[in-house]
């Protein structure tokens, strides 16, 4: 099973990007992660530019989503919501809505923040957006609060409880993507 992992943060050293790195480290047998890290190249959505083909970076994102079985997001929280860059990328990816790359795509959302709540509101909003796009939103929530305490100075996730949570989240997404696994 191929899973695309996307961090919603552009910041160098972002906790969510580090969380994605830890996620990839926890891939079980049979799961291959691909990290999409081209968020910064997505232009601001403009319907005047929403033509076929779309901007190169947008088409690459759409292709990356179509090529995988599921997508994993780790999002920070800006002003109680999804970061603009990530929302903007999804707005591009969602076009045209009725046939977009995320339609029926199994997705999972987790998040990290420096504060105590671990981006729970951004996670909820991101699930809402993905559901409206037609994605199959897995019942996953992992909130990594006080993120600066969870990674060492090399950016390695040192909290075993969170690593357990990542493994469980991958399992839920796999079962969401493949009902045969859920029935087994």
């Amino acid at each position, binding site marked *: 099973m191929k899973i695309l992992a996307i961090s919603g943060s552009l910041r160098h050293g972002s906790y969510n990007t580090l969380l994605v790195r830890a996620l990839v480290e926890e891939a079980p047998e049979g799961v291959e992660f691909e990290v999409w890290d081209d968020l910064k190249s997505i232009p601001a959505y403009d319907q005047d530019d929403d033509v076929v083909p779309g901007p190169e970076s947008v088409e690459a994102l759409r292709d990356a989503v179509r090529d995988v079985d599921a997508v994993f997001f780790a999002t920070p929280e800006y002003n109680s919501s999804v970061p603009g860059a990530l929302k903007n990328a999804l707005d591009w990816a969602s076009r045209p809505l*009725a046939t977009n790359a995320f339609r*029926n795509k199994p997705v999972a959302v987790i998040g990290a923040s420096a504060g105590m709540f671990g981006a729970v509101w951004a996670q909820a909003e991101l699930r809402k957006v993905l559901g409206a796009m*037609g994605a199959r939103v897995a019942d996953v929530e992992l909130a990594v609060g006080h993120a600066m305490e969870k990674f060492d100075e090399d950016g390695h996730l040192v909290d075993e409880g969170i690593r357990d949570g990542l493994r469980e989240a991958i399992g839920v997404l796999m079962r969401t993507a493949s009902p045969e696994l859920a029935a087994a």
Partner: protein
Amino acid sequence: MSSTAEQTGVPTGTWNADPVHSTVSFEVPYAANTFAATVPDIEATLADGKLTGVGRIASLKMKDENMQAHLQSPEFFDLERHPEVRFESSKLERDGDTVKAAGELTIKGITKPVTLAGTISGPLVDHFGANRVGLKLETVVDRTDFDMNWNMPLPSGEGALSNDVTLKADLTLVGQ
């Protein structure tokens, strides 16, 4: 000898829906009014007093293709994994022109008991010599019972989309 137009029981034998003259639809209150959608690709059979029907969600029609796609997405009917909705009645009860069909409704893979109620007309012989029965049935279901939980809060805090959905079947059944 009595005329078939005066028949007061549930017709015996097998009767299949004429798809051109049959409509399955639903209505749901949304904000200040209701919106409706139809499911044109249906099959329905009244056989030995029991009514069964299937609607194919791929055919679901709304005015707006994006809204149609949303209704076919995992948040609503989940066309990819649950392409059909199904009703199977245990019995049909007729009292004059009124009729009730108690049975089981399956949407999104979830089966719940429901009772459809409405009117029945006929049998009568149509202009081509076929026997026809008309059934107009409806019921109200709570969509959240079928794992359709999407909503959007209004400024008042209420959800924009009602949980109660009226399902309607207007069937013309032709004797086989």
